[in-house]
């Protein structure tokens, strides 16, 4: 089985600081990381290969900075990586990202399964996997927390608000995964060192037959501001019955009940 696991190289939210007055995000000292749910997608691919053989190709599209992600991704089990590098990805929206990934997938050629995280750690638009499937003309299964593959058929459990839905789909297909699907492995030192020896294919937009005009993001990010949770610090005192009443009054005033 040939699996393509897509991932995004994002700023580590743990390193982000919010400027107190303007609420502007301070990203100067933030490191980057593989987006959380995409780590689950990579792990899912590697586990499927461990069970039934084949190979996982890690695929990412990003600016030059995303080059730092390749060894990280490869240390997690994929046999090779494909990196579409273009500065346009800094202004990308989900539609543009999906177009670039679809072109890269076509460039890779044959495949059985494409795995994506349900959403990225930074913007969490939950669109790329679905758009990618539409562009490739193949089925997509979203909100997946369990998969099995047998005889070219994928059986997936979708974790939805109302319960678990079990679906079957003929491969090839795109699957977008949830974080409770697995625990991404911590790579061993040998796996980290071996990652440097794995092949990486670097592509550019021209090489994929894409031009800038096709890749103008329709969504423009105006500002990104941090949210600040302000606590009201209200204390309730008295008998339990009175306190409950006081709490209800306050919640009512806030329009919360």
């Amino acid at each position, binding site marked *: 089985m040939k699996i393509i696991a897509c991932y995004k190289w994002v700023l580590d939210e743990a390193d982000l600081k919010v400027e107190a007055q303007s609420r502007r995000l301070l990203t100067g000292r933030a490191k980057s990381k593989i987006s959380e749910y995409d780590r689950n997608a990579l792990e899912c691919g590697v586990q499927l290969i461990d069970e039934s053989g084949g190979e996982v190709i890690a695929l990412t599209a990003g600016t030059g900075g995303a080059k*730092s992600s390749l*060894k*990280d991704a490869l*240390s997690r089990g994929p046999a090779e990586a494909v990196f579409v590098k273009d500065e346009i990805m800094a202004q990308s929206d989900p539609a543009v990202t999906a177009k670039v990934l679809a072109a890269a997938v076509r460039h890779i050629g044959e495949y059985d399964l494409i795995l994506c995280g349900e959403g990225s750690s930074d913007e969490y638009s939950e669109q790329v996997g679905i758009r990618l499937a539409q562009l490739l003309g193949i089925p997509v299964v979203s909100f997946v927390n369990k998969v099995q593959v047998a005889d070219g058929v994928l059986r997936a459990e979708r974790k939805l608000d109302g319960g678990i839905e079990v679906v079957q789909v003929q491969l090839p297909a795109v699957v977008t995964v949830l974080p409770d699907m697995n625990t991404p492995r*911590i*790579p*061993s*030192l*040998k796996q*980290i*060192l071996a*990652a*440097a020896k794995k092949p990486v294919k670097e592509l550019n937009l021209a090489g994929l037959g894409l031009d800038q005009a096709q890749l103008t993001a329709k969504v423009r990010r105006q500002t990104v501001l941090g949210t600040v949770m302000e606590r009201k610090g209200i204390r309730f005192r008295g008998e339990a019955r009175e306190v409950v009443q006081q709490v209800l009054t306050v919640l009512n005033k806030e329009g919360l009940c």
Partner: protein
Amino acid sequence: MDFELSEEESLLQAAVREFAQTEVAPIAAEIDRNHRFPEEILPRLAELNLLGIPFPDEVGGAGADYLSYAIAIEELARVCASTAVIVSAHTSLGTSPIMDYGTPSQKEKYLHDLASGQKLAAFALTEPGAGTDASAGKTTAVLEGEEWVLNGSKIFITNGGYADVYVVTAMTDPAKGTKGMSAFIVEKGAPGFSFGEKEHKMGIKGSSTTPLYFNNCRIPRDALLGAEGQGFKIAMHTLDGGRIGIAAQALGIAQGALDAAVKYAKERVQFGKPIAAQQAIQWMVADSATEIEAARFLVYRAAWNKDHGLSYTKEAAMAKVFASETASRVAGKAVQIHGGYGYTENYPVERALRDAKITEIYEGTSEVQRMVIAGTLLR
């Protein structure tokens, strides 16, 4: 000059940090409280190649360098100094001398199992009457036919009782002083080899520290490590490398204490504002961070020298004395920042303070490190 870690080193740091946070930190306080050796963590350490970091792939190691080893020890010690010293004693004290001085057959017999973490190693030099003055050892080894017969005792042996393989020094010709000391590989279970009770220590309580007893302990003739009379040299060379591990451990303890202090200072409100807004707290944090950064450069520099085949005796001694004393100062300040809560087991800083002290003592006291440094300057 380049102050950035390589991609591989950064990935290794991130991997060990994640492992430490998710699998070691949750048991750190408990193993300390119960004086419990965390046996369950050893298979995971082996799986992640953390028990053979600086040894080549061919002998079962990770094939990384000493700087990577120092980074890994730092990250482990940041959450658990006991786990860090288990790894450090196994790697730089127990396994390194076999890597550096073992015969091909000794390497074949022991190295793969040790470097891959299937077995644990320890190093036994210190004796009741021979601490800093290691040459005053009374344990003897006498060749009888095809066997060495060891008699005597060792004390304060890290990984004692849990290690499978021990590198043990003994006098083969006491009249020659340090030149009459030899090193041996002794397996757990050798006839006449036994362990005493675990020491009840002030800190690093999750690690095992025991005496070793040799009572007509018979080991094969080919258990001699290196040449006869080379034991003191092997021990001193081993300790040079070991000091980098302990310096890295101290660095991690300091960083962990500062992490906790910064978190607490931002959360703890007194006089209507977080105590982080008080200059008294800010200065303690600033001084601690500055000392830690200086310690880190010393530790990484000593490891870098070793990786590049340069002399590192002085650098390792400088790293150890500075990092260990930094750990004690920073942990002390971290307790101070926490106030009364810092003096309880509810916060990790009291453990850090207890753990830090030993780094000023073992693998050469601070006084010995200063002797070593001065010795290289005033020679």
